[in-house]
């Protein structure tokens, strides 16, 4: 989705930092993440497990678990800072203006409440609809996300639906109040491969109809290739690369991104384990090296990488492609 950029992004996260209180004092989990989401844009957020993707998104809605807190930064959404908002107002944003879809559809729906009631809940609260209106709308929503026999499904309990269907219900709930932004935290990770593609398709369809912005968190770069406009790559709580999706695929500038892309199996036969061409594991929060956090695993690390962390800067020639790597220019040239 190229085109004129609106001046003001829908969501503008600046220097977001998150810490967890541990026995040995606070440990930094998210370290100065900045990212933007434009109106109508779909942003992919990728990175290995534990790099802080979920916590970043949860922090925007004030949903961080105990002992974990935002220690700095701002998140301007529609002109207001989500991180400085009074609880009352934030609750109106939750579900009303920002929808959230969670990873595991098996456990993210309340097992003792009927599907219909759960879809109606945000409508009753945010839109002050009557029960009859809300029920009608809930039926429409389930139809919208492609659930067969939508109306009858309203009276089902979550366990009567399959995982894929449940995730559709979650999406329907997330979109119930016509939010400007839908945040989907690995919405397909828990599903079968064939169903993953269905979910991606339905979201594409919904985006065309409703025009909301989307943040799609995933491990799976291949799955979202046709879905997202731009990708932000996180590593150990920092943004290491931020680029339009086609640029990123063709011309990855960060060695970590290249590693991620290389680990996509060429043949998408089922059962094939994801190859990890990056040796080692990301550092635990609180044990991150002083310099570039990726340096210990980086095939091209050099002395300066261990001394200082590279800043996220536009690649030579400017443009929307930004990388945090001292060797970025050289890699880009080598690949091109």
């Amino acid at each position, binding site marked *: 989705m190229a085109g004129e950029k609106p001046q003001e992004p829908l969501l503008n996260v600046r220097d977001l930092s998150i810490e967890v209180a541990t026995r040995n004092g606070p440990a930094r989990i998210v370290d100065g993440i900045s990212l933007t989401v434009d109106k109508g844009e779909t942003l992919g957020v990728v990175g290995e497990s534990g790099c802080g993707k979920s916590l970043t998104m949860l922090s925007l809605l004030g949903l961080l678990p105990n002992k974990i807190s935002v220690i700095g930064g701002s998140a301007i959404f529609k002109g207001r800072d989500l991180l400085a908002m009074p609880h009352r107002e934030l609750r109106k944003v939750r579900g009303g203006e920002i929808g959230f879809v969670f990873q595991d559809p098996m456990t993210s729906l*309340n097992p003792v409440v009927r599907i219909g009631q759960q879809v109606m809940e945000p409508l009753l609260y945010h839109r002050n609809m009557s029960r009859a209106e809300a029920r009608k709308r809930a039926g429409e929503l389930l139809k919208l996300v492609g659930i067969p026999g939508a109306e009858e499904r309203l009276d089902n309990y979550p366990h009567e639906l399959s995982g894929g269907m449940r995730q559709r219900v979650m999406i329907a709930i997330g979109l119930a109040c016509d939010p400007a932004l839908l945040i989907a935290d690995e919405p397909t990770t828990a599903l079968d491969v064939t169903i993953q593609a269905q979910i991606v398709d339905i979201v594409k369809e919904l985006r065309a109809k409703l025009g909301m912005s989307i943040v799609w968190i995933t491990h799976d770069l291949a799955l979202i290739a046709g879905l997202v406009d731009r990708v932000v790559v996180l590593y150990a709580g920092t943004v290491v690369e931020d680029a339009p999706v086609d640029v990123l695929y063709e011309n990855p500038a960060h060695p970590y991104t290249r590693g991620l892309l290389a680990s996509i199996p060429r043949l998408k036969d089922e059962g094939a384990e994801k190859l990890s061409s990056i040796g080692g594991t990301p550092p635990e929060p609180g044990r991150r090296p002083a310099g570039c956090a990726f340096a210990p695993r980086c095939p091209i690390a050099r002395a300066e990488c261990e001394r200082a962390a590279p800043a996220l800067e536009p690649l030579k020639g400017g443009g929307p492609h930004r990388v945090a790597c001292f060797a970025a220019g050289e890699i880009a040239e080598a690949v091109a």
Partner: protein
Amino acid sequence: MSDMALKQEDVRGEPPVNLWRDAWYRLKQNRMALTSLVIILALAFIAVFGPWLTPYDFLSQDLIARNQPPTWAHPFGTDELGRDVLSRVIYGTRTAFIVAISVTAVATLIGIVLGALAGYFGGLFDRFVMWFTDMTMSVPQLLLVVVINASLKPPLARWMEAQYLETLNPIYRNSIIIDFVLVFGSMALITWPPYARLVRAQVLSVRNRPYVTAARALGLSTPVIIARYIVPNALGPLIVAVSAGLGTAMVLESAFSFLGIGVNPPMPSWGNMIADGLRVWRNYPHLLLAPAMMLALATVAFSFLGDGLNDALNPKGQK
């Protein structure tokens, strides 16, 4: 998407999640539990409508027909004062249910309040409640009841007598009230700890379930989340515990009445009937058998129902 595709997806055999409807379905499959439920409902019916069902007054003595074996006129025979045993057993059922329900209700209430607050707030309050719970559980139940009984009964009785002399209201002469308030109040005070522990553990576990976070992400208010997301999902094990607890409370009541510190004669209780029957069981076994069988029936039924509910509400707990 066709319906077919949906069905195919469904084949993936996901474990069913806790659910009342599901639970009821599984409970119905369990013959023992279902039979127990029927027995309990029948006993409850007898307890509620006892006064209209008994062929005789439980106090009316017929000194000519003492210690009679079962006859058509007295299906369970008569006791040494010529009272109809069937009528007394029925009144004993009433006593058992009143005691079991009130003791369990009070104990559960204490347990829910303390356990939920401890689980929800955590910290120092949690530690205090858990310490209090452990302490209560570490004292032998019988001992605690005897102590409470012995130390509180005389002053309470004196106070009642004084009230009576002042107001001449016969209600203060009713010793049954003392029995119920004191003995069964103290029973509640010793049986709440398991409920508190259970509720606390449930609240702790449910509070962090993904659907609770999802509900918060929808902007729902804390009361709505507690009422619709936390409480119903935390309730299953408590229902199991309450079912088993009712049976335990009946045994406890009978035990205390048997020892003479529970319901006192002439108020019939299975416990004091067993005590009376035990003295003469060689000659008049029916005096022991009738109340003992009722007690056994009730406790076995509650225990099987509890087991059945446990299986029905925790499908994952099954082998």
